[in-house]
């Protein structure tokens, strides 16, 4: 049996790690909205209006998820939303790969069409899967250290 304290530390690392991922990816997308639009458009899935809306909201949604994870508010819900978003990203990259598009995922800024030899679908999917593991851990066991949740909700523990 692993002591709860160790699991708490693992949970804390998962929470802060996922928070860092969202904050970095969100900020990189937010500072270059035109590039973000081009990246979203390159998946060739959405209508032009939907691309506009997704490209406008996605960076700020990522920053919000990152901020909430950083302070540890509603960790289980935010982890579930994170997992949902990561699954959408994985589906997006997988469909681009399956359809033979050659795009950069634009996961951390950048994005758009690249030369056929420059795609990195395997790395992108593995990376997103790794992030998904962090999110799943927090869904299963959201308890972690330094979280506001423990102040907002009196769990009866001290």
């Amino acid at each position, binding site marked *: 049996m692993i002591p709860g304290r160790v699991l708490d530390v693992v949970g804390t690392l998962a929470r802060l790690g996922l928070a860092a991922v969202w904050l970095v990816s969100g900020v990189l997308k937010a500072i270059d909205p035109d590039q973000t639009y081009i990246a979203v458009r390159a998946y060739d899935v959405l209508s032009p209006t939907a691309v506009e809306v997704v490209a406008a*909201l996605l960076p700020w949604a990522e920053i919000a998820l990152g901020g909430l994870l950083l302070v540890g508010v509603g960790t289980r819900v935010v982890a579930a939303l994170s997992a949902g978003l990561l699954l959408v990203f994985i589906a997006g990259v997988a469909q681009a790969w399956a359809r033979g598009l050659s795009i950069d995922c634009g996961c951390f800024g950048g994005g758009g*069409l690249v030369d056929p030899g420059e795609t990195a679908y395997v790395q992108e999917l593995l990376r997103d899967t790794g992030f998904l593991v962090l999110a799943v851990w927090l869904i299963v066991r959201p308890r972690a250290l330094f979280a506001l949740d423990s102040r907002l*909700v009196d769990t009866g523990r001290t």
Partner: protein
Amino acid sequence: MGGASRNEKKRRQEAANQRLAAAGIRPPEKSSASRMPLIVVAVVLAVVVVVGLTVLISRSSGDVVPTYTASASGAVVTAGSGPVAIDVYEDYLCPACERFEQRYGDEITTALNDGQLTVRYHSIAILDERTDPPGYSTRAANAALCSVPAGVYPTYHKKLFDSQPAEGSAGLTDDELVAFGTELGAQGDFAACVRGGASAPAIAAETEAAVSDPALQTDGNFGTPTVAIDGTKIDLSNTSWLQDAIAGQ
């Protein structure tokens, strides 16, 4: 954790609560407090949606109707007749050019309409290989040059970017390029001009000249969109570049 141990835990919790109640201690009220984080999450996400959509709506361009005139020489279209002249290099397939037109199109059109600005649009075809079959960039640039004598360049140029095909697609067909012109009121034999592709050599020469001009490069590379004033590329990350140019800065 199995169902049996879960029940066991629940039973022990209830027993503990009973002992607390017997001692006159009420267990902490869980229902309202445990909703607090959810409320915070919901509020934060609602703010994101509202702010994001507000920014989107405030940035989206309306429809300024172009009233300026244009003339063509080789593969360069000169629009307007204002005192400040800028050179714009665009490829009709380039997604960043579509963004450029979306963001600055209205501002440029207004300045052209008001006689503040002259824009020399250089027809560039660097993405011919990015359609299947190749060649959309050149076909679209040729059609745009045809729209000048047809008298509809200002609206046709905008239409080509508004309807920009995706990279990797077949691009718009010649029929579609002709139909856009007809829709916008093209005069003369626009269809034959589009299908003839007579401007292709001029477009190729213009592209070659732009690509090999060091003054238009960043880190040794030429890309579209590029805007130059007095022959020198300007930094488009400065979003007030056009006001600055008109103000003579």
